[in-house]
């Protein structure tokens, strides 16, 4: 009863201020949008054919005309142009690009001046360093997106404002390499349809006008097979594992790439793009599990047999076990398992494998070995996918 009452009172309370106040004051987003709009640009560059747009959005991060946007094909041109909020049309040039953050810094270039020289502009801007010091936004936070979605705005027309909430803070990729997408850190998923053509590089802000993130591209999430609406947080941080050869010895090294570092150094023209070697970790350790014939797109990872003396045999795998999770990652099929092992493991690595045995999940510790020189019984090739 109490809760029922509660709803009624709550509804009444919420309704009062809206009706009792002048329209303008009841609409705090208006002021915010006007202010933020001055800190945004429309970007025009390469593309314009076969579904690649030649337009996008950018965020001004210095009075001198430094702009943060997405590292897209748009920038592959010497004819990069931005439109300011007041309709000014200015040339711009790329200063730095980091695919690991899917970010780029461009700078407005004034006629007759070199790119390193101050432009003499005095633009409204987001203080990126300040924004990056704030804590991350939480699920349920109200947010606003400002983008040039569908190239609806030209010259002095304001960008489009959208309202939504942070739907989740999560990783887009990296869980299973499900995306053809370089950025592996956390993103804000938004419940408004923000990621449309032209929106990439737009700003995600909170109700107070703080910059939260950079609106990303149009990407389909294969976990749910839905289009994602996401922004990369200003605090973005990615750890990249690379292999380096030091004194003829191969060593694994972790490099941390952060958005604040990229922006600070990029604005000074000092940023060096991370070169990621093709292979990250080993080619996959040896386990010795023989799965059932892999005849479907998603054949469940049932163990048919275990190679005697193999790591799987030592770990206690048994025929009919269903490999369900490896290091917490769900294994939907044999293909997923094989891909995961190949991408993420090497000899000597210890995996926590949960198998379904009867009606319960059992956790087994699997210490991978080196790939044997002689080929082990291989899986039959998966059936060709029907178109």
């Amino acid at each position, binding site marked *: 009863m*109490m809760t029922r009452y509660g*709803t009624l009172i709550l509804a009444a309370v919420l309704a009062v201020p809206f009706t009792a106040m002048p329209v303008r004051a009841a609409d705090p987003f208006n002021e915010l949008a006007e202010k933020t709009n001055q800190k945004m640009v429309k970007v025009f560059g390469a593309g314009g054919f076969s579904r690649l747009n030649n337009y996008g959005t950018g965020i001004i991060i210095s009075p001198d005309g430094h702009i943060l946007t997405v590292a897209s094909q748009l920038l592959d041109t010497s004819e990069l142009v931005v439109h300011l909020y007041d309709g000014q049309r200015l040339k711009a040039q790329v200063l730095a690009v980091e695919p690991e953050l899917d970010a780029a810094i461009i700078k407005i270039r004034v006629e007759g001046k070199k790119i390193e020289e101050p432009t003499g502009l005095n633009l409204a801007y987001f203080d990126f360093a300040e924004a990056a010091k704030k804590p991350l936004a939480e699920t*349920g936070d109200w947010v606003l997106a400002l983008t040039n979605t569908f190239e609806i705005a030209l010259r002095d027309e304001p960008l489009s404002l959208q309202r*939504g909430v942070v739907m989740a803070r999560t990783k887009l990729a990296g869980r299973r390499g499900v995306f053809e997408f370089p950025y592996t850190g956390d993103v804000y998923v938004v419940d408004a349809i923000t990621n449309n053509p032209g929106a990439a590089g737009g700003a995600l802000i909170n*109700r107070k006008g703080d910059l939260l993130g950079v609106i990303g591209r149009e990407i389909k999430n294969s976990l*749910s097979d839905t289009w994602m609406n996401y922004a990369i947080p200003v605090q973005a941080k990615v750890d990249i594992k690379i292999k380096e050869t030091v004194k003829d010895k191969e060593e694994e090294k972790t490099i941390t790439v952060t958005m604040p570092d990229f922006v600070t150094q990029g604005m000074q023209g000092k940023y060096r793009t991370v070169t990621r070697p093709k292979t990250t970790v080993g080619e996959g350790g040896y386990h010795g599990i023989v799965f059932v014939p892999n005849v479907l797109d998603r054949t469940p990872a049932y163990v048919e047999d275990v190679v005697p003396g193999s790591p799987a045999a030592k770990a206690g795998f048994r025929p009919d076990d269903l490999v369900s999770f490896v290091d917490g990652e769900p294994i939907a099929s044999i293909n997923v398992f094989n891909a995961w092992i190949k991408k993420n493991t090497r000899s000597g690595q210890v995996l926590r494998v949960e198998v379904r045995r009867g009606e319960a999940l059992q956790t087994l510790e699997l210490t991978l070995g080196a790939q044997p020189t002689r080929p082990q019984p291989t899986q039959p090739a998966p059936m060709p996918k029907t178109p």
Partner: protein
Amino acid sequence: MIACFTTRRLLIAVAATLLATPASRAADVNEATEKAMKAASAKVAPSVVKIETAGGAEVVGGGKKGPGGPPAIRKGTGPTTGLVVGTDGFIITSAFNFANKPSDIFVTIPGRPQRLVAKIVANDQTRMLTLLKVDAKDLPMPDAFPKAGIDIGQWSLALGRTSDPDADHPPSMSVGIVSATNRIWGKAIQTDAKTSPVNYGGPLVAINGQVYGVIVPASNRAEGETAGVDVYDGGIGFAVPLEDIMGVLPRLKTGQDLKRGLLGINPQGTDAYNASPIIGAIQPDSAAARAGMLVGDKILEVDGKKIPNFSTLQHVLGPKYEGDEITIKLMRGDKEQELKAVKLVGTTTAYVNAFLGLLPMRDDPGPGVEIRYVYPKSPADLAGLKAGDRVMKLAPVAAPALSPIQNRAALLGALQRLSPGTEIKIEVKRKEGDKVETVTAKLVPAPETLPEKLPLPSSAGKAIEGQPKPKGKEPKDKDPFSPGCGSEGEDEPKKDEKKDEKKDDKPKVETGFIKRTNEALGREYWVYIPENYDANKSYGLIVWFHDTTEASKDGAQVGRTFRTVCEDHNFILVGPKAGGKDGWVPSETEIVMQDVKTVLGQYTIDKARVVAHGQGNGGQMAFYVGFNARDVIRGVGTVGAVLGTNPKENVANQPLSFFISGGDKDPTLKDIKESKDLLIERRFPVVYREMKESGKEYFDRVTFDDFVAWLDSLDRV
């Protein structure tokens, strides 16, 4: 109690905003609302579980593209969402999450580290829900929002577990309002919060933390677990009220799948909104048949609710399950009757067309119907009926007396109401010597065979004389096949015109290939009128749907192909044009039918022989139009076409026959055969022809002749 305190504290916080200065109030209200939303999510979060699956198909649903067909959905591999509905381990979720038939299901409960193996207990096949059971105790139950209190405009939060893999984090939240209640035939709440595979199975939550319902994909146009997924994040999402779910939970727990409760009746016409709910047909062995309902009964009330039209009836029956009992008040003749405890059934037995084995002579004003042709070895043949005899009266053997058969329409109508196996008595006036005899015959299911060679003429040439007198008292809608046009009012002056023409003995009707433009829509279509057009004969109508993808027959070409057919067998051709190059779209049905109805109004058309005919994607459109304009279309003939949607039921008062063909080298032959099998399964009369050494070509000679025989025998009984 804890929940109550939380709410109270929140109220104090919100109430405080009233005391703030006016300028900051709006922002503070937003702040308070934002907090309330997070609190609501936090309140339900412990009951929102993560579901993971292994195995199963990559692509589900649809598979066959076509107008109106559900698109194939690629099922994501990520986790999905469920809601606790029993402290002892019962989880309810959307059936969509298992549409790909995974082999294994695991559930993670927030705050508990161990993943649990889940079993499917049962499915609710009408609300597309699945009940799972895990071995767990003391699960936190969500609080249901009272269904009666759900109002349009209330905040609604859609929660899910797909986006963030960690079940101990807050669930994903998308915010909207309640857009409508009682949607999808009274089964769902509608919201503008973003719903998608990211939160199907999760709760739709009110701002006080009570649960409105469980998020499911849904559509009022299609059924099945993937229906409605194509409009995900489209601002139109649905949730099944939790109160309803809790109501049927005891039945689901028994492990029995729940099906939609069906009455098994079909309306007389197609106007579900204006026409009275008069029964046009009753499915055999259905709830209606068992309760003794009859064709012609008018439904007045169901469970005390007035039923002004069929649409209301659908809304009242929509939420019902198999086994539910309803009370029906109906009008039979001029007497009201009440049927109590009519038990709805879960499956209906398909209607099977009964077959006597003769072709009636057309345009014969009667009394009686001349027999044009008798199918060899048919019940009519076995009973000794001969071409030239006149059928005068007819009734089932069990009936007390024979009913007079005025004309062909009456004969078709009388036999539609009977099922195979029925023994009938026929009073026949012999051609030889005018002798009147009574014979008996046992009706059989309609066979696949076509008459080898059809005798001509097929028409007595008295179509206009055969028309009921303009101010006659005969019930108009009892005669679905009467020659002439659909809308009687408009038509009458034209009949007079035609009579005048007849006096001149030279009809002034323009013949040949005529291009026309639909004035209102500016779309072109063409008509082919045979040179020997005679308004006193009723003509069949072939609506040709061209293939938009390939160089397919069109316009004049089709006219040439059908020229002799049109002249000898009395057919008119009409050819609408697809609006786009990418194929036909379902919404074009209405436009096409406008053109068809224009033609119906201008010429003497035999309503028993209006056929949708098409090749390739045009054939697919022909299938679609056949099922969606059933008041007009009586046959569908296709070449190399695949059924885009699941076939609808075969009903007595809107018969539909099929002629399906495909080339043996057509790569889609397998799908064409599958389409044919689906139709046969629904007990539609289907003629199937596979053409040798043929890919995507039009009919070969042999098949074309068969097609013509089929066209000319659509009014068989």
